């Protein structure tokens, strides 16, 4: 099908009256890992929130389709049901709501005709194991008093359990120590090896190429000033690692001039 993919077309969006996205064009293909890199303030997280429908982000124009279905205008829960997942850079704490209750509710919302409780339980425990997470996690309140690493692991647990068509990982590597980063990589790679997970398309938003040592990117996009300025293969990440963003900025500026 030609309309498959998470297709972002000329997306423009603003926050608090300030335009941040100046026309994003990007296609995340099923089963592929795309990295979205860019300096701080380039609009990467804004893109993530605009796609998922955060109420503070105003869409000024353009479209985002998921396998042909327009997402713009849908409430966030409908986008999740359509198959979109965002791993938050700073996930919200929800006191008094247990991880187990939350994950069960989320899974049932996204996939109502679901596994029997025993199988669901088994699945959770398997995924916990991959992420090196203690089952005691399940009875804690969602993200309440979690360390940075615990929060990111919980995001990855949800990713594995909700098994979306497209996953946006917003700075999942930020604030993680080596062990946590390895767990995150293991979890995503394990998911991609399953029958259900192999078709999931990833958009990994990152400032540093560090996470890409654990999750291999197929395509790398560079974002600056609210636009995609360059797209290339995995070697592009190495260029960034060696030379930073300045060289690309000069290149882009030169190209425009």
């Amino acid at each position, binding site marked *: 099908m030609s309309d498959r993919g998470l297709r972002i077309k000329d997306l423009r969006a603003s926050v608090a009256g300030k335009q941040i996205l100046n026309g994003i064009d990007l296609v995340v293909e099923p089963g592929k890992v795309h990295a979205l890199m860019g300096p701080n303030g380039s609009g990467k997280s804004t893109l993530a929130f605009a796609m998922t429908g955060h109420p503070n982000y105003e869409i000024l124009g353009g479209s985002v389709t998921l396998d042909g279905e327009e997402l713009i205008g849908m409430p966030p829960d409908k986008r999740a049901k359509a198959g979109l997942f965002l791993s938050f850079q700073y996930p919200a704490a*929800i006191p*008094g709501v247990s991880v187990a*209750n939350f994950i069960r509710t989320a899974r049932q919302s996204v996939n109502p005709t679901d596994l029997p409780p025993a199988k669901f339980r088994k699945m959770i425990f398997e995924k916990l194991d991959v992420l090196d997470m203690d089952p005691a996690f399940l009875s804690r309140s969602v993200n309440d008093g979690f360390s940075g690493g615990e929060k990111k692991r919980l995001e990855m647990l949800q990713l594995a359990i909700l098994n979306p068509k497209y996953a946006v990982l917003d700075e999942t590597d930020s604030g993680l120590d080596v062990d946590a980063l390895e767990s995150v990589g293991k979890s995503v790679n394990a998911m991609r090896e399953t029958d259900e997970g192999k078709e999931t398309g990833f958009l990994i938003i990152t400032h540093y190429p560090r996470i890409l040592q654990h999750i291999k990117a197929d395509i790398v996009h560079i974002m600056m000033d609210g636009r995609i300025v360059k797209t290339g293969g995995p070697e592009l990440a190495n260029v960034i690692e060696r030379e930073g963003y300045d060289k690309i900025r000069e290149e882009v500026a030169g190209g425009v001039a």
Partner: protein
Amino acid sequence: MASLSLDHAGISSETLEHLMAGASPAFDAAARRTALAAYEALPYPTASYGRYWKHDLHKIDLTHVVTSAAPATDFAAPEIFASDARSAQISFIDGVIAIELPDALRERGVIVTDLATARRTHTALLDAALGTTVNVADDKYAALALAFQNVGAFVHIPAGVAVDHPIVIRYAAVANDAFPYTVISAGENARVTVIEQLVTGDAPRFMCGIAEIIAGTRAQVDYAMVQSANIQSKTMIARGATVGNDAVVRIGLAELGSALTVDTLKALEHAPGGHTDVAGLFFATGDQHVDLSTQVDHAVGSTTSNTIIKSAASDRGQARYLGNIRIRKSAHGSDSSLRDDVLLLSEKAHVDSIPALEIAANDVKAFHGATVGAIDADQLFYLMSRGVPRVEAERLIALGFFEPAIAQFPTETLRVHLREALEAKVTAQ
């Protein structure tokens, strides 16, 4: 209670004389007449804070108060604890008393009886406790409660006795209005959990009562009150507690029902090593008004307390919480905390949250934290981004909000009951 005519209604000395003529007395006539005089003389409670309080109590119409109707016979009182989950129970449906107290507990000296019987058979024990924590001379509605007291329970746990499961006290006001008076006393090293339920039938009722808790040296008393009157009723309760040497008193107040609830708790820490926990929750929905006041009074040093109040309001719900921690000059080395959080779920809902720390001693620890707000947009977005529809997400967040207070209530059975009751209120939105 003798069957009486319906001609006598309302709050008056005439009704009182009539009531006394028919009931077996837990209080003598002179005490009741004095209390009624105090009720009539005392001004309506007012406060210098809050926006709703002042204009409401004057409007309560007590001319239809009924204390002499035939008791309801077809009322099935709601049960939180099944018979195998409680150690004893005293239940009142109007004035009709049902007591279950296993011989094993009776033989160890545990008393679970109605107040009038206690007055006759355990006079000294009752006198040692009754009236020691609530002063009817300066509390208008406590005075009214004493004057018209028509139901009441005395629970006494002798020194060294531990009761395994909760003792349930249940007051059901069905055909009559209720003036319940609860006295709980725990001797040295005694341990008990007491659950008090205030319920009504479908008719609007007035419940005006007193509850007193007296914990002796090293005693442990868990007391939880669940008020689930119908939403046309009015409930006004004055509660008092004294905490003995190295004793632990945990108090949980769950205000779920009633059109108007006024609940006042004063806990006194008068002996070193005493610890008090106060947990309170209410959720004013529809047109409900709730007024909750708690005070923990640290009169001596080396006493500790934690207060946690979780209150929510939606629709046109109005509420006030007055939270007071008093640390007297003599209370060196006391350690207390007060945490109250308010969740507002509609534009017209309003909660005045008024914490007050009165600290007269120097070397003390006192923590206070408070928040007031609507459902957090980031929490909502987070849940919705996982596919959870808005209504369900709001429900989860609201129920989660109460959880830290619920966690302080005794027994998982009660906690489950509270979660379900709150969920029903949230879902009814």
